């Protein structure tokens, strides 16, 4: 059977539909109670019933994540620039950053609560702390792997190091940067929800935590689905941005 382009495009949806169907059948066949593992139908029902609070919580989580994410872009790019442009900075800072990144952020949230109180602070900061590292690393890598031939072209004209970094290094790193954004945004969502679950008073994380403690599993799962949908939408958005702005770097893979 020849796989057409149309089939390729519809395939993810088909797989999703098949998975949902299977899920429904399994729950029905084994009569799994609602509070252990709800079926897609039950989740959909709770989704409709609690649409208001769900969307409100989702919106809150969304913009808290966006704030943290914006912060991580700014810091990530600056830090990446510093580390990638100076070998000394690279050697001096990198081990420390890796160590910092290895600390599970769940452990950091209580500390943030002590410093900033329950509410927005821990949410934004956790999103930031968890998501700036990939951006830093990718920018630093892009700058540090600059081909000498491209550099020579400018050096021969007497260009200063700054010129080389800004005119050649940074544009050259853009594919890496946009790639890292896709990872960072999903991480940022993780950070926010984590903070909300541990020490939040609103947002999807908090809603899921409350629903779980009241044995309302379908609602908790509905929250899960909401986050998943948001994160996926953002991922696709940045994927699209990446294609538009760095088309020059992807020309090899366009052969279809």
């Amino acid at each position, binding site marked *: 059977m020849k796989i057409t382009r149309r089939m390729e495009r519809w395939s993810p949806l088909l797989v999703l539909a098949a998975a949902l169907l299977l899920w429904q059948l399994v729950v029905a066949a084994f009569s799994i109670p609602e509070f252990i593992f709800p079926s897609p139908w039950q989740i959909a029902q709770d989704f409709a019933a609690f649409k208001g609070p769900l969307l409100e919580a989702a919106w809150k989580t969304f913009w808290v994540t966006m704030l943290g994410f914006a912060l991580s872009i700014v810091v990530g790019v600056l830090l990446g620039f510093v580390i990638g442009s100076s070998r000394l900075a690279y050697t001096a800072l990198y081990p420390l950053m890796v160590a910092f990144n290895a600390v599970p952020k769940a452990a950091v949230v209580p500390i943030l609560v002590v410093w900033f109180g329950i509410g927005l602070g821990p949410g934004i900061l956790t999103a930031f702390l968890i998501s700036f590292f990939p951006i830093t690393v990718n920018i630093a890598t892009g700058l540090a792997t600059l*081909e000498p*031939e*491209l550099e*020579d*072209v*400018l*050096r*021969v*004209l*007497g*260009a200063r190091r700054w*010129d080389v970094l800004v*005119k*050649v290094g940074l*544009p*050259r790193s*853009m594919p890496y940067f946009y790639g890292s954004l896709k990872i960072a945004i999903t991480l940022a969502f993780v950070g926010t929800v984590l903070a909300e679950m541990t020490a939040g008073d609103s947002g999807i994380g908090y809603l899921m935590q409350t629903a779980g403690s009241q044995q309302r599993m379908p609602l908790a799962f509905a929250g899960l689905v909401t986050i998943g949908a948001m994160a996926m939408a953002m991922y696709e958005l940045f994927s699209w941005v990446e294609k538009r702005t*760095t088309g*020059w*770097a992807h*020309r090899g893979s366009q052969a279809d």
Partner: protein
Amino acid sequence: MSFVDFRNVWLAYNEELLAKGHFAVEDISLQVDEGEFIAIVGPSGCGKSTFMKLTTGLKMPSRGSIAIGGQPVTGPLKISGMAFQAPSLLPWRSTVDNVLLPLEIVEPYRSTFKRKRREYEARARTLLQSVGLAGYEDKFPWQLSGGMQQRASICRALIHEPKMLLLDEPFGALDAFTREELWCTLRDLHAAQRFNVILVTHDLRESVFLADTVYCMSRSPGRFVVKRQIELPRPRDLDVTYTPEFTEIVHELRGHIGAVRKSGAAIAQ
């Protein structure tokens, strides 16, 4: 007075090698007049690229002196343009933007760039058209063939109207037909603008066709072993490459290079 003046120049790559007496190039003396076209031919690893680095001020000599335009060389020159074997065009810029790049770096163009942008762009487009890239100015480098990219690279080396053009095996990666086309393009540009050209190449025919003077360099440590004036009248047509006089000159030079390759000393590390 000569424009480029090398006097007894020696270069060792670092202190260690200098102490051991291992030089990359030895006792280089050469004088190039304004507007002259010289070619340097030699085996691989003989120090041709080192010579280029000395000329552009990217490296300082360990011994001897270099003066360009009467001034001693202390750093990268802004009066020279350079093209390498790889075109190295920036893939995120269109061809015309690539050609404009030196004007964004070099004074006095840099400070007037925003104001005079349209004028500079017109200049870049004219230059591209003169080398046969009309219609391709707004395309991206990957949409151009290797020969076209190299042409654009040469335009980029000339946009800031340098007095000196340095070419480091620029046509090495091209097929024979494109190479001959680009010889003619270069010949015409040189005839029109009369800048100095220092061409480093492996190709003897190329050097004899294009240059006024050909220097042969020995293997590492590089020394000039032959200096040959090319008396063929200008403007030179491609047909001249099939005449007996031409072939004789190439043959003679080939003999010198052959002798150099056989009797060369072990390559210093």
